[in-house]
């Protein structure tokens, strides 16, 4: 099952290039805190970034502005800037 909600990174331990001890982040979403692995994530997050988590591993890092951009796209798709739509 995929978790749709990105989780906010609140702390980071370790380094992606350390092959013996995998890096770990503390993440938080809707009041739930957990520790997740960072060894397969596409870009190492910074504290304050968001990550998409699957099976205890972050698989994608998104900057806070990415989420806002996609909301703007949805708004556009919904026709709110479309002249054919009633205002």
């Amino acid at each position, binding site marked *: 099952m995929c978790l749709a909600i990105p989780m906010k990174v609140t702390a980071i331990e370790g380094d992606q290039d350390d092959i013996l001890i995998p890096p770990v982040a503390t993440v938080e979403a809707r009041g739930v805190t957990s520790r997740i*692995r960072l060894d*397969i*994530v*596409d870009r190492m997050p910074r504290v304050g970034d968001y990550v998409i988590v699957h*099976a205890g*591993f972050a698989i994608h890092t998104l900057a806070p502005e990415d*989420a806002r*951009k*996609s909301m703007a796209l949805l708004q556009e*798709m919904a026709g709110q800037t479309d002249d054919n739509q009633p205002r």
Partner: protein
Amino acid sequence: MTDFAKGMAQGLLSKIKDASSGKPMCFMEVCGTHTMSIFRSGIRKLLPREIRLVSGPGCPVCVTPVGEIDQMIELSLLPGVITATFGDILRVPGSTYNLSEARARGAEIKVVYSPADALEIAENNPDKKVVFLGIGFETTAPSVAATILQAHRNKLKNFMVFPSHKLMPPALDALLSDPEIDMDGLICPGHVSTIIGARAFEPVAEKFQMPCVVTGFEPLDILQGICMLAQQVSRGENMVENAYRRAVSWDGNRRARKIIETVFKPADARWRGLGTIARSGLEIRKKFRQLDARRHFGTREKTVPEPKGCQCAQIIKGMALPSSCPMFSSACTPLTPVGPCMVSSEGTCAAYYKYGES
């Protein structure tokens, strides 16, 4: 839903209506998480009548053949073995009983949230062999691969994986090659695409002239995906579009794919409903063979028939609806499941049952 979101949903629905303009269209949501989100949000009831959604082969537990479930049960009952697994598989019927019943017969089975938890169980139980059931698509495979790498580096002798991973693009190719399948577009999986990239669907889009839209899991994401598909159909286009850019790039997660490639190699795999598909699964490379439970225990899959009367094989392909199965909600319910589609939280039958659709 906020007024703002309601406004967006209404806008998208009216765009979908404009694009379809009464023409019947059938879209497949490939991923089981999409299926659940579509039912939970009631999207099917909001769409124009001419737009039909069918569920595809995107529930990992549902596409695991009975013979493989039997192998997992067999392994779990061996002395000195701890089986670590995601919870979904426990109640999927094998040919005689399920893993949950194996547990009642003495098998030590632990439900974990991550393959990394399974590794920890192995570290804490040096006198036992811990077998993690590696079920899932491209989303799960890199985390299992990373765990195998970690076990290899730490020279852990008592951790193993039973590899049963499946790959989405070869399965979609096999599915769409079936002349009986008639689809107008694919709602492509979200987090599978985070790993493999939106571009991975290009061969399917080209070969079958099939509109493909990579879509997120929120109800608005799904409406947007459907809207883009309907617009492609109305314009006669068939390309790959990405409606989930906050999580999916065109190229995907290269780091994760590299870790998969280090540990696994593509292998033929059997799917419930779809049969054996070339290079649609992952096999553990020789370098890591001591971590491969299939090799270690020398277990072989037997060909086992589907449960009698069960339509899961057809439902997985979008060729039958749960309501057309004679056992649906009578002999087969979430409490007494006959087939995997009724067990899994992502199964199509479970969704129909839970949300009372026919």
